[in-house]
Structures are given as C-alpha cells and as structure tokens.
C-alpha cells in the first residue's frame, strides 16, 4: 500500500460572550440552577419572536474579518428544521444561505512551521437546550437554549492531529484576543465536528469522509489519531469499502469512535430564510467601525516581544497564551517597567498565583501599577528580593497596595557606614572565628553574614554586607 495521508476538516463551535442571548433578552451566563436564565422565546412559547443581539452580530463580523473572510452584503438568518427535545422551537436559527463570512484563510504556526488553513465559512447561530438522560427520565435545562454560537467550518486542508490542535489553539486565542469569547475549554465552550478521510499520497481525489460529531476539546486528538489508524488499517487489509460515509461519535471511555448513522440517513433540515428577522445591510461604515476593535494578535505580539523587548521564546510564548496576560505585560512596559523584569514576574509569581487561585489576570488584584511599586522599591534597594516576594504575597492576600508594606522600618539598609559599624562590632567580639575562617573554615563566612542580619533584623543589604565582610576578613 502506498503511503497514506489524512485529510481533515473541522467544524468548530464556540460560545460567544454577551449580556443577553443571541435572539432573546435572557441572560447569557452559566448558572448551576437549571432554567433560571430563560425567557419565553427560549422555551418557544407561542407567539414569541426572535430579536437579534447586535453585539453578537458585530462579534461575528469581527471574527469574519479576522479570518480574512468575505462578508455578505446583507445579514440574514435561516431556519434549520428538525425535531429534538433539546430544540424547543423545532428549528434552530442559523445561517446557511449567507453566512457572516465565507472563503477566508488564516496562517498558523504548527511545530515551528507556518501553515495556511482555509475557512469555508463562519456563521452565527443559537445553541440548543441541555438534555440530561437519567435512568427513567430526561431533564431539560433551557439556560443553554439561545446562547450565541459561532460555527467555523474549515476546508479539508489539515493532515494531522497536531495541525488541528494548533489550529484550534490559534483560533481559541483569537477569540480571546478579540474578547468575544472566553473560549474556555474547561466550561466546554468549544466543541468540534471532525471530518476525516485518508488517501494515497499521490492521489488527487479524497477518500471516503467520516464525520465524528460533537467532540469535546479533550477528545479531538484522540478522535483524529484513532480514526486515521482505523481507516488505514481497513485499507491495508483490503477492506476500505468498509469505510463508509457516516457519522460517528467519540467514546472517551474506550478511546474509540462509534458509528451513529450512515450519511444516507442524513437529516434533511429543510432550510429556509427566517422570516421574523428582516435582512439588514452590512455597510462599509459598519465594517470599518468593527475593524477598529480588532486587536493585535498573539503571533504578532510574540514576535514583537522577542525582537523589540528581547524576551526569550519561552517567556514570550507563556505571555501571549492569554490575551489578558499579554495586555498586562504591555501595560507594565507602558508604565516603564523593564520588559525582562516584567516578564519574569509575570511568568513566575503572577502566573503561579493566578493558576493557584483559578482566576483570570483581569481579576488579579495586583494591577501593573502596584507591581511597579514593588519593582521600583527593589530597584532602589529599599527592599530585598525576599522582601519583594513577601510583599507581593501580602498585597495579593490582603488586597492592599504594596506601598503599604514598603515602609521606612522595613526598608533595606544600604548605608555602608552603618553596616560597617555593625560588622566591626561583630568582628571585634569574634576573633576566634576570624582565625578559624582564615585557617580554611570557609563556612564561617555565613556565620558573620548571619550575625549582621540578626543585628539588622534582616534589613542589611546582603550584597553590601557580603562585600564589606570579605574586605575585612579575606587577608
């Protein structure tokens, strides 16, 4: 058998941030109490009508521009008709005739190479209710019904799980950078349908496409690897006709994909244009207005951080991984903090603090202005780096400005004369130890430093202290 290559395309669904749902005034927020963020439309009470959330439309258009798609002249929606208990209206309002973006592409980095992923289309739609099947009943939670979703459909252009994961990660960051979605994997805000086929390396026609539906972020790599193996194995055994155009699902427990239905039984969604939402014109002025809100993205920022600010690849990568961390970093620089110092604080203490607390950097108490107070004090030698760490922890815990802890009595002592006096005093009372040190007992040096620290309650500048002690006893 010739060498096989995989051809993969994905449909990526991502929940958008907004105050209210995409077509109703109910709150778009996660709630543990079922059926609290709902309004009559979300449960399809008779006579209720959809009202489009303009913010969601703007965000969808923004993403369309970011992905270099073409925007349609008119914005309108379609109904996708099918019966399911989680679909209260019996149809989903989505976009099939004229999606908010078509024919786009985006360059991404995968294993240190740049690849281009084609975007077939991106469209705005509503989520369904959440359905929980229990032993003898099923429960419906309409909180999720009507949550805005952006569905991004790639062309079949990727060839490995690595590429797909890199793509998803890249897009996830873009959502975050545009501040249109938290794109939070832990909250299941990203779900994918994955289309996979294999073909001979030199073939021009795609093989039989298998669709794996509704895969959580955590299952995507497994799905792709499993499906490629499965299809190649069948082909190598001469049983490629058993690869059917079908819909499968990922089974987390067994690490396999399981057949759901054949494409022959595919549902006819009987799309037609949603009559309750009038078409509206997407003007150039609107697009220009939205374009102003597009931020500088991760890849560009990373290059900037390395080339302009002299960060190393690792630190730059950690910082751009979260748009708000990157914003924090840039604010630090704007405040005049040295870029490398800021980067070390951010990738070290700050990252571990916010990870430990499970919070976003936006909710992190120590704003760049406060961080600057600590760094400035450290630079002036007013505090030791040990003290800086302590002040950092205290300020975060007690939610007080670091300046409160940088008072005159805990400031580092850098007055050489004063330190020298203390050292002379100590040396005068410890002649035996000086001799021991000079005879080779080098660890006695730390004893003298310790004594100075004891005398100054740890406030003596350790560098000055050490220098002075060396001058006096290294004879």
């Amino acid at each position, binding site marked *: 058998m010739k060498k096989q290559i995989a051809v993969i395309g994905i449909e990526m669904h991502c929940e958008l941030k907004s105050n209210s749902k995409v077509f109703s005034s109910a709150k778009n927020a996660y709630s543990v109490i079922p059926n609290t963020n709902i309004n009559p439309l979300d449960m*399809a009470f008779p*006579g209720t*009508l959809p009202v489009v959330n303009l913010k969601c439309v703007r965000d969808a258009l923004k993403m369309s521009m970011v992905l270099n798609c073409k925007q349609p002249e008119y914005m309108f929606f379609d109904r996708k008709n099918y019966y399911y208990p989680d679909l209260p*209206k019996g149809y989903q309002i989505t976009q099939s005739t004229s999606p908010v973006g078509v024919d786009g592409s985006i360059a991404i980095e995968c294993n240190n190479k740049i690849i281009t992923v084609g975007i077939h289309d991106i469209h705005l739609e509503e989520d369904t209710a959440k359905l929980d099947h229990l032993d003898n009943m099923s429960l419906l939670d309409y909180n999720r019904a009507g949550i805005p979703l952006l569905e991004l459909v790639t062309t079949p252009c990727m060839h490995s799980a690595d590429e797909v994961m890199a793509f998803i990660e890249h897009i996830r960051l873009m959502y975050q950078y545009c501040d249109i979605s938290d794109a939070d994997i832990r909250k299941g805000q990203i779900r994918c349908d994955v289309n996979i086929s294999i073909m001979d390396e030199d073939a021009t026609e795609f093989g039989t496409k298998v669709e794996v539906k509704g895969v959580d972020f955590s299952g995507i790599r497994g799905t792709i690897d499993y499906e490629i193996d499965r299809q190649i194995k069948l082909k190598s055994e001469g049983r490629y006709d058993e690869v059917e155009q079908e819909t499968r699902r990922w089974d987390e427990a067994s690490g396999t994909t399981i057949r759901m239905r054949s494409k022959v039984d595919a549902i006819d969604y*009987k799309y*037609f244009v949603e009559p*309750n939402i009038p078409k509206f014109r997407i003007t150039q002025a609107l697009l220009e207005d939205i374009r102003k809100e597009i931020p500088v993205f991760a890849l560009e920022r990373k290059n900037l951080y390395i080339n302009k600010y002299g960060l190393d690849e690792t630190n730059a990568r950690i910082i751009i991984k979260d748009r708000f961390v990157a914003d924090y970093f840039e604010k630090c620089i704007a405040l005049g903090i040295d870029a490398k110092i800021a980067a070390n604080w951010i990738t070290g203490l700050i990252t571990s603090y916010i990870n430990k607390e499970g919070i976003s950097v936006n909710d992190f108490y120590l704003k760049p202005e406060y961080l600057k107070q600590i760094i400035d004090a450290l630079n002036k030698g007013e505090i030791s780096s040990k003290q800086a760490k302590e002040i950092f922890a205290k300020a975060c815990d007690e939610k007080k400005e670091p300046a409160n802890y940088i008072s005159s009595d805990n400031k580092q002592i850098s007055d050489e004369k004063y330190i020298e006096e203390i050292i002379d005093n100590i040396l005068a009372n410890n002649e035996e130890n000086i001799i021991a040190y000079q005879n080779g007992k080098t660890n006695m040096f730390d004893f003298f430093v310790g004594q100075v620290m004891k005398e100054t309650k740890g406030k003596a500048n350790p560098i000055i202290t050490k220098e002075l002690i060396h001058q006096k006893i290294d004879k």
Partner: protein
Amino acid sequence: MAYMNKTIEEIHDALVNGEVTSEELVREALDKAHTVNDEYNAFVTIIDNAQKGEVTDELLSGIPYAAKDLYSTKGILTTGSSNTLKDYVPFIDATAIKKLSQKGAVDIGKTVCDEFGMGAYGNTGHTGEVLNPWDKNRSCRGSSAGSACAVASGVIPYALGTDTGDSIRHPAAYCGIVGYKPTYGMISRYGVLPYASSLDHCGVLARSVKDCAIVVDAMKGIDEKDMTTWDSSDIHLYTFLNGDVNGKKLCYIKELCDIDNYPNATLELKEHLKIFKEVLEKIQSLGISVEEVSVNRDLINAISSVYNVIAYSEATSNLSNMTGIVFGPRSDGSTYAEMMKNFRTKNFSPLIKRRFIIGSYVLQAENKERYFTNAQRARRMIVDAWNGLFAKYDAVIAPVGSNGPAKYLDMSKNITDDSLVPLEEHLQVANFGGFPSISIPDGFIDNLPVALNITGKCYDDENVLNIAFAIENLLGYKGQIAKEVSK
C-alpha cells in the same frame, strides 16, 4: 338602550357624557356574547369577569372588544382554536392586546377561528364551526370567523383578527362588515400565535372604515419584541380620514373582474360582478378615476399555489414547537419521538396535518427548488406586478370572492371550478407584498352581503383607508348589523 351596535365615536360620546358607564357596556357586551355564542358559536372564551375600563380622552377607553383566539392574553385561555392548546393560559400579553389595554379598551372574549388561522371557512376550530349571523346555513368564511360573527351581530363594535391570506378580509366581507389589514409590520405580531410569519398580519374587523382606523391607530407602533415592526408614528389613520378623494386613481384587473373569464359563471357570480361594476361607475362621482388594467394571466393563476407553498412551509416550521413537551397536554410514549408524534397526531385537525405534509414536502431537498424556491420567485414577480400598478394608481379595487357566503352543505363544491380560484384567492397578493388592504361591503345578493376590496402600496395606509372611507360613505353600508335571512 343598546350601545354595542353603535360606532366607536358614538359610544365614546355616550361614555364621556355620562349616558352610560363602562361597566354597563361590559355587561351588555357579555350578555350579547352569550346569546350570540349560543346561536352561532363565535367564542372560545367569554371573559365573564372582564373589568370596566377607565374612561379617558382615548376613543377606545371603557369600550369592550373581542380578540381572535390567536392573540395571547395573560392569564386568559388562549387556544388558537386548537386541541394542542386547549388548556393553554399564556403568561404574556400580545403587544397589540397590551396597547389596547393601555388605552382602556376592555377585552370581553376570545373568538373562534380556524385552527391556528388555517382554513377558509371557520369550521376547523376545536370548538366547532362558526355560523354566519346572516344565515346559519352558511359559513362566515375564515379564519377570523368568530370575530366577524361577533362584530356583525353587534356584540362589540370591533374585534381583532389576523390575516395570512385573507383571514380578516374574507370573513368581514361575508358578514357584511369592514376588515382591514394594515401594511406588514405596522402592528406587532409579538404574542400572536403564528401561522406563516412572512404573510401573517394583525388587523381589525369593525362595522365602519373609521372604526378600523381608530383601532389600528391604537394597536400600531414599533415594538422592540418584533423586528419586523417599523415606526409609524407619523401615520394618523383616524385624523387623515376626510373623504376627499378627488383625483385619486384606481384600477381594476381585467383578468379578475371581467365576467368573460368565467365560462361557468353562476347567477350569483354574475350578480356579484355586476354590483362591482356598478360601484365602479358610481365612485367616479367622487372624483375618482377608474381604469381597467391587465396583469399577466400566468401570475394571476399562480397566486393560489404560491400562497399554499409558502404558507404551508412556514406553518410546518412555525408549529414545530407544538410537541406537548413544554406546554400543551403532554402525550404518552416510550421515547421522545413517540411522545411528540402521539401529541401531534391526536391533537391537530386533518386540515392542518395536510398542510404540514405539503409544507414539509415542498421544503425537502429534492423538491425545494421546484416548489419552494420557485414560489418565492413567483411571489416576488407578483409583488413587482402590483407595485407596477401602484406606480400609476393609488390602489387596486377588486371584488371579494366569487359569490356570497357559502352554504356549509355546498362547501365541497367550492373548489371544483378552477377558473374561480384567482377570484377567490387574489387577496393573498396583499399578504405577499405586505400591502395595506381593506374590504368593505358593496351590496347584497339574495339579502346576503358581498364586498369589494381596496389594496394600496406599503406604508400608504392613510390613502387606502381614505378611499375606502369615501366609497363607504357613498354606498351606505356602514354600521350594518346582521339580519338573519331566514327570520
């Protein structure tokens, strides 16, 4: 003394002058509603505990009205005349209902219609057929049958209807009253049970053009809950009515109005078209010019099919929420699919199920281009043709239907003559284009009322109503209360 058979202005004056109280009016309307319901089956619900409304400067304040049972009324049974919602009590008011309440109007009942507004004869509602107050053997036509019946019987001065094909204008015509559907989006559809959203209109049935104007003035307005509404704050239907129509130009369509189109014309049809032609002569005395125009016959013939395809497609989707899961009497079943199926099989009437199947069929991938997409194209062509007429004429005038009210016994015969279909269904064009359209009585055949229709261009409701107002004054069929022919 009775007041419910008077005009809104007369009743308002009586209230303001202290001749009568709102409480007394409500009592009178409720009593009459019960009587009429016993005779003609016009109401699903008579709101016996309806409270008087505060009398203010508002013309509608303190005056009772009724609403088609498609309008959601908070805390009051709203069935859509369907078994699927036979016990459904909404927790929202339709915007139109809310607006009327704010003006002090008093809803005293919910009227019977064809199930979810689907049906032409007022006989598919879950509480049974509505009888015509002019002749119990005949239909009021539909779907706003109960509203037409109640207004024509003098229960209330006006009732709300909905109109997807002709559902206000037909029953109004066959009950001898006025039926007006304003431009699409002038009245919010929020809270109104849908049939086919792109064709559905709210409107009113009353006994005079002026009363229609007063009521729609009160119901209309932009609504943040219905994106298809538009700002009509500079349209004042009531104050615009002055009867001055000198210089207005009307046209009538040869392919609809010429008796030669109907080789098998009945005596009734001949009489109907004769009355219409006489009216065309008469109204020239108002300074209106009338011209005959021709419209492509293929377009005229397509109207009914275009309506069926689009309306049934939207209906099958709009009513997909009727599963019995969230509301309605939940059916048994071992799976959700079975539950839904049982609910829909048991509770929808055969007519609706037939329409769902047609709607579903024409939307199927393999049929969609041939039926649904072509129907959309034809809709556009028909609307363009009418807009072409509106470029030259203030309105199109036409006879309503092909005869007087149908006898229930004869209904099966109604669709046997294909040549009559365009005349029966042409009012649907106003739904295709969202045009303002009003039917007013224009005479009698065998003592049963017949009507004409005036349809104008979008947003030109003031002109359309003023023309209808002038013609109404000339013809003298204003304020008719049904008189049973057999009595």
